[in-house]
């Protein structure tokens, strides 16, 4: 099967919630070379793009849908946007759900937009991540 516009609206929840730890936040901040003190210590908040990592747990489920026929090694990340209700912080337990919002085809290339809602497991909204990816089906 291949993805098409009839699949807009399909939603994929991450298999498990993500427990945010302050040492993971520190590791991520170190990895992006960001020494901001806000990302360290007992009251640490996560750097803005940390949200993408949590969203990728829902993306994994989307990629596992055999009806879409997508392969990670054929995907290029074209655009990324976040809107934040509040920063992610150490101690948060976060659920992620990705929903396909647009599918456009141009030859072998499928341009897919999906929106990932991040909230605490108690339902408090954290952030929305909007991603645009291109999937190239040439030679597949």
């Amino acid at each position, binding site marked *: 099967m291949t993805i098409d516009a009839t699949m807009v609206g399909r939603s994929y929840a991450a298999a498990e919630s993500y427990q945010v730890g302050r040492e993971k936040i520190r*590791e991520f901040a170190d*990895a*992006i070379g960001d020494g901001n003190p*806000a990302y360290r210590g007992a009251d640490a*908040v996560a750097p803005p793009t940390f949200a993408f990592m949590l969203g990728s747990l829902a993306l994994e489920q989307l990629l596992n849908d055999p009806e879409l026929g997508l392969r990670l090694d054929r995907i290029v*990340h*074209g*655009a990324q946007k976040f809107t*934040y209700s509040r920063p992610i912080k150490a101690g948060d337990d976060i659920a992620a759900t990705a929903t396909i919002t647009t599918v456009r085809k141009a030859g072998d290339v499928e341009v897919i937009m999906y929106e990932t809602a991040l909230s605490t497991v108690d339902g408090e909204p954290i952030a929305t991540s*909007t991603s645009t990816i291109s999937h190239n089906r040439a030679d597949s």
Partner: protein
Amino acid sequence: MNKISAGDVLPELTVTLRREDLVRYAGASGDFNPIHWSDRMAAALGLPGVIAHGMLTMASAVRVVTDWLDDPADLVEYGVRFTKPVVVPDDDAGAEVVFSATAAKVADGLAEFDITALFAGEKVLGRARAVVRVP
């Protein structure tokens, strides 16, 4: 944080990305796509070399704005387009990316910044914009 007006420019930030930085980001983020660490795999996909994770470039770019904020929690929106890859050679020099930001609009307690990311003289991000709460 100083008062901001449309047209103001924030201090520039230069980030040098070396192969080690890509390996570190792969580990921290869980994105182990081999195009970010293997010359062999990058070449097989027709890339000019190992390229930085777009999300690492995106993370670096917003520092121009969050370094200026008193509290990075005042960031309310941030988006980019990935328009060109940042090729990171396996040497000591690495790839130098220069980030800058200009306030495009300040109104209703929000400031919108246009961010520019230059690598080897070319823009690697398009429509890079951050919206922050300001007093």
